[in-house]
């Protein structure tokens, strides 16, 4: 029988399916971070349980840590306690931890792939919904709650029911200026934030095949914003080329042998899925979200919605509330929206390629005076070093941006990087929820190139007309 990648990974990881219970699925890789793990470790201690496979578990600090000078102690007492708790827990249970001063530190979903810890065919979990990012490698990866973190620590397995599968096929070639962020926002705009609920998505089609690994990670990252716990892409030569030479690959086999194994996970040609969603790459415009849910999004040439045109009453109500929160009028051109702040970073768009794209736009320009703050927060310390080697940090500084240490930063505003009430931000992150970037803050989700261009113009602008100064 022809199988899709999800079916292959599921079958290979089934430990058993006890009668009348959910299946027990083996977990190959468990990532943990400071925010969703302390209660899980405490649970282990209370019931006197051990971590079954510390060798398959890796920790990093990202959500809570400052992106400014790291030589100073963390000012916020609670944040400091949480970071220290993770360190202590890792020491007690013998788990490797990339702490704030480790050169491998960074956002968990940036670090795993760049170290080669994320590999095709794996099952990967983390107490973080954007674990779907790792699906770009052809791994079955999804977020779990803290009780499940404890379950995986204690048993190295997870209770699961098989998901339905959705193929999202992007046909054709991506026009210039359109990025994978625009693809995924367009998908969410089409199927809605609950369109993928109950499904695992596989992204296929010519436009996906032509994407780099960084770009694939951006798409898989936002699968959760479409309601799907996991989104993956079958491994191919691009995947293998990315993994070659990564520091933490298995040492007991040759890279050629690993690559051979990895390729076997790809979906069989002609396999089937429970449902299909198709988009043409040629039809996708640069996207800008206008509301408080990632599905409230549109092409840059469009406008905010006109409420009278929205048929569904609950939706009309939600749109009305969103426009009010966002301080926007009905039927307003997206290109007329002026911003105060720009944030480029996060596990969605904080990788080296994202920074290169932003730098390409910014080279020779300065941010508009009306833009009060512009932050670049690399996804990891490795990304930061690489960018500095390429001189990108100078381009950003010359353009009036702040160049920071890595971390989640203004993606969720748990540290000091946050929006003030009413402040409007062009952000390359993944969630435009009310208050996500700070209470009362207004978030517009865009690609790194669109964010950079908005910083220069002070309003959203169509990147397809950008005059690059090389």
């Amino acid at each position, binding site marked *: 029988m022809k199988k899709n990648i999800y079916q292959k990974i599921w079958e290979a990881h089934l430990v058993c399916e006890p009668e009348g219970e959910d299946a027990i699925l083996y977990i190959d890789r468990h990532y943990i971070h400071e925010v969703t793990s302390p209660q899980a470790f405490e649970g282990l201690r209370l019931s006197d349980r051990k971590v079954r496979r510390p060798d398959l578990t890796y920790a990093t600090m990202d959500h809570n840590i400052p992106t400014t000078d790291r030589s100073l102690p963390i000012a916020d007492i609670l944040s400091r306690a949480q970071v220290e708790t993770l360190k202590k827990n890792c020491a007690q249970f013998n788990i490797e931890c990339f702490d704030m001063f480790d050169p491998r530190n960074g956002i968990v979903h940036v670090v795993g792939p760049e170290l080669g810890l994320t590999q095709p065919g794996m099952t990967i979990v983390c107490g973080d919904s954007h674990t779907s990012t790792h699906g770009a490698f052809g791994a079955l990866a999804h977020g779990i709650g803290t*009780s499940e973190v404890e379950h995986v620590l204690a048993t*190295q397995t997870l209770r699961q029911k098989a998901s339905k599968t959705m193929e999202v096929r992007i046909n054709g070639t991506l026009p210039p200026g359109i990025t994978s962020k625009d693809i995924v926002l367009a998908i969410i705009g089409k199927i809605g934030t609950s369109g993928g609920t109950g499904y695992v998505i596989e992204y296929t089609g010519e436009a996906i095949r032509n994407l780099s690994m960084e770009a694939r990670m951006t798409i898989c990252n936002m699968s959760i914003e479409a309601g799907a716990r996991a989104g993956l892409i079958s491994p191919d030569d691009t995947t293998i080329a990315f993994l070659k030479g990564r520091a933490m690959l298995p040492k007991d086999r040759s890279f050629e042998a690993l690559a051979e194994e990895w390729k076997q996970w790809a979906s069989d040609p002609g396999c089937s899925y429970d449902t299909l969603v198709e988009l043409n790459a040629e039809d996708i415009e640069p996207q800008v979200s206008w509301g408080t849910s990632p599905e409230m999004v549109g092409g840059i040439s469009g406008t905010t919605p006109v409420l009278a045109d929205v048929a569904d009453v609950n939706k009309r109500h939600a749109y009305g509330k969103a426009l009010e929160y966002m301080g926007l009028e009905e039927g307003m051109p997206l290109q007329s929206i002026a911003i105060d702040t720009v944030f480029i970073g996060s596990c969605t768009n904080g990788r080296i390629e994202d920074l290169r794209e932003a730098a390409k736009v910014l080279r020779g320009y300065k941010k508009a005076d009306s833009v009060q703050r512009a932050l670049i927060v690399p996804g990891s310390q490795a990304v930061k070093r690489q960018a500095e080697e390429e001189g990108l940090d100078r381009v950003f500084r010359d353009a009036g941006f702040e160049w920071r240490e890595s971390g989640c930063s203004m993606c969720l505003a748990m540290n000091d990087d946050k929006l003030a009430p009413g402040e409007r931000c062009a952000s390359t992150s993944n969630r435009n929820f009310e208050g996500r970037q700070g209470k009362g803050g207004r978030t517009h989700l865009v690609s790194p190139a669109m964010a950079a261009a908005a910083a220069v113009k002070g309003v959203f602008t169509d990147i397809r007309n950008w005059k690059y100064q090389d």
Partner: protein
Amino acid sequence: MNPFTIHKGLVAPLDAMHVDTDQIIPKQFLKRIERTGYEDVLFFDWRYLDDGKTPNPEFEMNAPRYQGASILLARDNFGCGSSREHAPWALFDYGIRSIIAPSFADIFFNNCFNNGMLPIRLSADLVEELFQQTRAAEGYSLEINLPGQKIIRPDGSAISFEITPFLKQRLLNGWDQIGLTLRYEDAITAYEEKRAAARNA
């Protein structure tokens, strides 16, 4: 974990689609390392005025008639966004034991069962009807009968709901999921050995 069998309680409406876990509990309250004590910060940004203390009179759940509610009525895609289990912890600490909505986000749905809470999916039409009845009658309560998989309204009429047998058993017995899985520890060890052997072959 406490078992969930039959629960009777006051119903409170939360009339918004796509209520995300950032709304249920904003990030500044995720810094604590404890599992309880989140009752006062549930729906923080909606529930309080800008001073963070005065209850917001515009927030429907704040009305005196809904105080002490243990059943939450919600709209589509409740609990979307982040995987933070702090969201079900905060709901539980506030006193919520069951949430009724047309649909839930997957991770949140799972997290509820790990905390002895019952999320129930009903059709959008039925949920709308319950919203109307809740608002029409002060003190509107429902009885949720998990063994019989039905919700009994004040007039005695019953609405049946679906739940998988495994999830039902877990809630009814208040089973600790880790304990349940560790009964299959031999199978886990056998799986690991089989994989190691295949790799070395």
